């Protein structure tokens, strides 16, 4: 792990201890068993906000602590380990970033303090089909009086069922597939014409599909430039990807640690199973994948903080490597645990289901391979 600042070390210890003591995987199991519609517990969310993690990125003047993405990653890695369910990523990182990048002072003043104290959840609504494709935006925002009218639908919106506002990518000109013509809007969820259908997913988190039927919004709802929103959207998504990758790394690291422990204690044929070379070599290879993923994720977060022009390719690299490692690790967690890994009573299934959900979010491995290689002219 990269050398941490004192602040980061403190936050890491705090997050680690809190997740272990207050929101371990058994808490997630209770949440899953309760089949709560919104995919997180109010109590957990309140604690997250109280610890100030929702305000990590938000300036002190607006109620946050004005820290950086690398610091946020340290916290997300720890919550990822215990599969902590809360809107921290969706609102505290993605929603906040939309406002921080969106260059709309009034909206920032209005929403950032509420994101920071956890009283509002702001989330991004970007995709419209089964696969992440930010340039395929087809929701229309047609000029209507002084403002715009939204029509169309969004899918798989994180915390969509409990959000107070959506950052909606809509098309003010052009057609699906074009980067030009996209505009971002901040739309309160109680605006007339919005329908919200929550989804019951394998990872038991909160997602919703949204419908927009003649939703009237003012010109003051625009984040960034009209028609020029793709650059903002892309920068926002890169922050989302790097943050989610940090959370995924934590999830996969915990799966690795638990599996390694099992390899050291479980005996078969009179020896610990980790002494079988086929398992030991696989563990060593997974260790390599883990170290590689960590290097990429740390580099991506630092590049965002440093406004490095390489940040986009590093974010794709980070999301892809996190996805590859978590994918393999979640499969091997089950295989190396054998039959017990297949039972619902054991936690491996939670890691597996969460793995695929996070892989699909903000672009899977294939999406990011293609985004990465497109930078090399082929």
């Amino acid at each position: 792990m990269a050398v941490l600042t004192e602040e980061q070390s403190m936050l890491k210890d705090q997050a680690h201890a809190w997740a272990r003591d207050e929101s371990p995987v058994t808490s997630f199991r209770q949440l899953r068993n309760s089949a709560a519609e919104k995919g997180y517990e109010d109590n957990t969310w309140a604690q997250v906000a109280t610890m100030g993690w929702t305000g990590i990125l938000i300036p002190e003047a607006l109620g946050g602590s004005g820290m950086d993405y690398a610091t946020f990653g340290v916290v997300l890695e720890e919550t990822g380990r215990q599969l902590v369910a809360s809107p921290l990523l969706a609102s505290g990182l993605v929603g906040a970033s939309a406002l921080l990048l969106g260059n709309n002072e009034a909206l920032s003043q209005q929403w950032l303090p509420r994101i920071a104290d956890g009283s509002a959840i702001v989330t991004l609504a970007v995709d419209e089909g089964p696969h992440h494709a930010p340039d395929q935006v087809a929701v229309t925002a047609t000029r209507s009086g002084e403002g715009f009218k939204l029509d169309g639908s969004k899918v798989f919106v994180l915390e969509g069922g409990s959000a107070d506002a959506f950052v909606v990518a809509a098309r003010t000109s052009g057609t699906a597939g074009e980067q030009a013509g996209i505009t971002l809007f901040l739309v309160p969820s109680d605006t007339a014409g919005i329908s919200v259908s929550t989804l019951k997913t394998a990872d038991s988190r909160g997602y919703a599909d949204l419908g927009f039927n003649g939703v009237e919004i003012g010109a003051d709802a625009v984040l960034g430039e009209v028609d020029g929103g793709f650059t903002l959207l892309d920068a926002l998504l890169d922050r989302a990807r790097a943050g989610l990758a940090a959370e995924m790394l934590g999830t996969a690291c915990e799966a690795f640690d638990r599996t390694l422990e099992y390899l050291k204690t479980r005996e078969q044929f009179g020896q610990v199973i980790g002494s079988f070379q086929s398992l030991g070599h696989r563990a060593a290879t997974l260790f390599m994948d883990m170290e590689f993923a960590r290097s990429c994720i740390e580099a991506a977060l630092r590049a965002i903080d440093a406004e490095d022009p390489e940040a986009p390719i590093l974010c794709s690299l980070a999301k892809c490597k996190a996805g590859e490692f978590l994918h393999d690790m979640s499969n091997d967690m089950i295989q190396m645990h054998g039959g017990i890994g297949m039972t619902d009573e054991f936690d491996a299934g939670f890691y597996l289901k969460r793995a695929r959900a996070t892989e699909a979010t903000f672009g899977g491995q294939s999406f990011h391979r293609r985004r990465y290689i497109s930078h090399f002219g082929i």
Partner: protein
Amino acid sequence: MAAADDLNVFREEARQWLNDNFPSSLANQRPPGIAGFGAKLSGDWKAWQERLGEKGWSTPTWPAEYGGGGLTPEQAGVLAKTMREIGAISPIGGFGTMMWGPTLLDVGTEEQKQRYLPDIIRGNLHWCQGYSEPGAGSDLANLQSFAEDKGDHFLLNGSKVWTSGALEADWMYGVFRTDKSNKYQGISFLTLDMKSAGVEVKPIVLISGQSPFNEVFFTDVVVPKENLIGEKNLGWDIGKRLLLHERQSIAGSSGDDDVVGGSYDIEQVAKDYIGMDGDKLADGAMRERIAEQKMFAHAYALTGRRFSDEAAVSGPSAAVGILKVAWAKDNQNREEMLIEMLGNRGLGWEGDGFKESEIKTVRTWLRSKANSIEGGTTEINLNLVAKRVLGLKGY
């Protein structure tokens, strides 16, 4: 030439019999369940089960003296082909026909064969398999369930795990410890009536939310001595032999399926969730991965068919272990590709937000993770191939 003529005569005989006995309403229909594995059939399916069982063609190559078909492997091949042509599927199956029966034919006494085989052939009884035990894992011989010799019976205490179909099963066969002082030479192969006093079955919930497996608990269960198969304390070899039949049955089943263009239409999922670019899938990399998957499945099916042909001549071989490994790999790879192609639709668990087919795919994907564990882990099967087929030491 005479042999070929005989086969032609048999082909006509089979056609005639199927014409007279196979209900045309069932043509190209899959049975609603398997007699011999939990299903109680009714109507035309029940009639078809009874006629097929009576004829013995549910187990075509088993000896006629026990109710089997008494056919040669060549005749059985002709029968299978003829049934395929008219879309006639046997509704009789399960552990009895696949593993237990073939093993009993190898090692049972005349009396035991007469006692058990006819009901297996007719699909009258549902057998489950008592092998795995809690904590044993891949070390199958590490058995703790103890059948104490009480003179005229064994008194059984302990438990089994990962027992599929135990909830509905009529009988169990399995391996049990009868001597605590010798790991391998202290195991006996027993059958037991699941309705015996002291047998309790508890389903195991899997990560898929389904419960295809169970735990079975034995508390002072009385097992009559006549239920001992083979010699006392020498049941481990029978147990291993049965597992070879298990793997062979995987080989055989794959050979019967028409894997190319089979029922699981990965192409349709690709078209629906990824889309086409002209006459090709829009995603070139996924297109090549689908090709790899289908070609692997095709090679697997051809190899299963070849091994079945060879087994008909020389009996089951440890080489079928690779089919078990390949089956798991192919299933898991295909399911992962389906989930990936479904994208965020591949996360559906329940409710109106997802199509039934999407939710079913997610559940099937999760269930497939057991494929490389059940029936011998991939690691154990590779060990067996390394040792018994390749002759390597240390496995």
